[in-house]
């Protein structure tokens, strides 16, 4: 019950924001803008999945941006040679591998997630730059840019891919044993161990998945930009946290869901979009986002209180 009511509150809030934007901001409602809004929202949500998954197990993955950069640069190197499928697979593999390393060090060697992923961020970014030597890899075959540029009816491919990935993730989290164990580990890792669950293995899988999704976002981005740079996703960890927080993923672990994440993505996208549509300087964006975060969390806080009362 409780979780549902909270979901509804958030849905309502987003509806209000959208309505307000629609009325107040010129050209907000136009088809082209909505499409581009949709695209930005889903890409943000996708980027945030990496951070959110680690948050679900009471961790935090600061290395997603760097991992995405490295994996997409390596992938790009293969793709420009025409090995599209191979490149994509390699990219995803590298991402998952990076995540695996994070997870293993955190779960098995008990490194604090902060130190591990923070250091990982440096290491991986460094490797990516060493590989590209600071020049971009560009000129992809259409068979690849298709991933970021083509449309399904009016819907841009990134939205389709993003929606598919998020939907799949939603199923995995709600309808599978892996999902349940993930929430359990986030709620109380020790209890999970003492209940005979493979908590450590779960944490490793979660971080690997987070790395995998990061590299997927990376691939979509380079397909859109039609070029891969080693400085891809510098701000992703912070953007991801913002989306996750607005989406109601709890830092304490074990709370939050994908629906919230998508809503968070929409809110972030709307804020940025409106700032540009209103012709305000970019600088207002950060301010509003910080503001929205507090606001979202306050709403959440109140509804949570309700939840307790409702017992």
């Amino acid at each position: 019950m409780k979780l549902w009511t909270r979901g509804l509150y958030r849905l309502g809030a987003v509806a209000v924001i959208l309505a307000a934007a629609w009325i107040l901001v010129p050209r907000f409602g136009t088809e082209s803008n909505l499409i581009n809004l949709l695209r930005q929202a889903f890409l943000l949500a996708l980027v945030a999945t990496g951070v959110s998954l680690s948050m679900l197990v009471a961790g935090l993955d600061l290395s997603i941006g760097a991992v995405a950069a490295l994996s997409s640069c390596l992938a790009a190197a293969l793709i420009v040679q025409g090995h599209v499928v191979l490149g994509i697979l390699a990219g995803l593999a590298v991402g998952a591998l990076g995540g695996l390393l994070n997870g293993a060090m955190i779960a098995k060697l008990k490194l604090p997630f902060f130190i591990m992923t923070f250091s990982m961020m440096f290491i991986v970014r460094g490797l990516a730059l060493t590989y590209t030597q600071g020049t971009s890899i560009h000129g992809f075959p259409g068979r690849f840019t298709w991933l970021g540029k083509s449309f399904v009816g009016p819907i841009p491919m990134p939205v389709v891919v993003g929606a598919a990935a998020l939907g799949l993730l939603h199923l995995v989290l709600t309808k599978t044993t892996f999902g349940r164990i993930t929430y359990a580990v986030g709620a109380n890792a020790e209890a999970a161990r003492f209940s005979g669950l493979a908590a450590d293995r779960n944490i490793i899988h979660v971080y690997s998945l987070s790395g995998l999704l990061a590299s997927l976002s990376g691939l979509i981005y380079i397909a859109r930009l039609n070029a891969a740079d080693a400085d891809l996703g510098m701000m992703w960890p912070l953007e991801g946290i913002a989306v996750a927080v607005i989406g109601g993923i709890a830092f304490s672990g074990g709370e939050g869901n994908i629906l919230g994440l998508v809503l968070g993505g929409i809110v972030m996208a709307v804020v940025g979009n409106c700032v540009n549509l209103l012709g305000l300087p970019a600088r207002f964006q950060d301010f509003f986002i910080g503001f929205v975060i507090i606001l979202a969390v306050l709403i959440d806080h109140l509804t949570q209180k309700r939840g307790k009362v409702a017992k």
Partner: protein
Amino acid sequence: MKRFVRFACLALVGVVALAGVALAAKDPKDVHVALVVKDLTNRFFVEMKWGGESAGKQHGIRVTVLAPEKYAVDNQIRIMEDLIQKKVDAIVIVPIDGAGIVSGIERANKARIPVFNLNTLATGGEVIGFAGIDHVQLGRIQGQWGVDTLKGKGNLVILEGTTGASSAIERQQGVTETLKKAPGIKVLASTTAKYNRQQAMKVMEDLLTRFPEIDMVLCANDAMALGAKEAIKDARRKMMVVGIDAIPEALEAIQKGEMAGTVDSNGFDQGFVAVDLTAKYLLKDQKPPKDTLVGSGMATVITKENALAFDKSKTEKFKKFGIKVD
């Protein structure tokens, strides 16, 4: 622990005493010049690095190229401080911000390490010379070309560089100068995309929905132009996109007809000239001229017609210095 500290202090004193007598060597092998650029994740500065290193090779001196991992002037100051400690023979600095870097240069002055200022003019401190491209001029070339090709009327969007960065301000200044003389041209929006490709793509997406009619986009560097052009492609719109810097990727885009043009800011020569002059100063005491203007590789906008030729000449030059281009 205590014991260690005492030992460390003794050791320090000893080393300092020895280090007392430093001798200035004229043998090129021992001459060490450090080139500090803004950022090494950007092709333009990578070419500037190549230029510097090539000049170093010619003189047979040692050249180290450094850059901050974060685009912030304080980090450049930090690097300069470290180089001062390292007692390099000279520092060539490409300030992220002309005013912000001053305290760094002053520290070098205090340590009597000659500083050569490259590309972006520092507003204070003593430098043995400045070499650089005239950013205002680059802006003028770009703007004028825009005015001419639009035949004096049309809708224009401008993507500025990182707000506050002097190169961005100057390039913008050049553009606006020329546009003032063309009242027929309407500037719909002029906003920053932080010299960054991702940023530019996002900003452009929003601008495209905001303005149904855009004829031309002027970008303060090619990275932004390339980002913008992708956004335009996705929106299935057509308009001319012009950049600055003439990085290979832009040249390809121009040949493909995806970008209308770009202006060469000649990173390689800038790097080369700066290190060359500094080396001459160190080895042969030749005081470099106060200001050296590095010509743009081409005094006009590079378009489909001359892009190929320009690209060739450039790769020729790189080959000459034994730089292998991907």
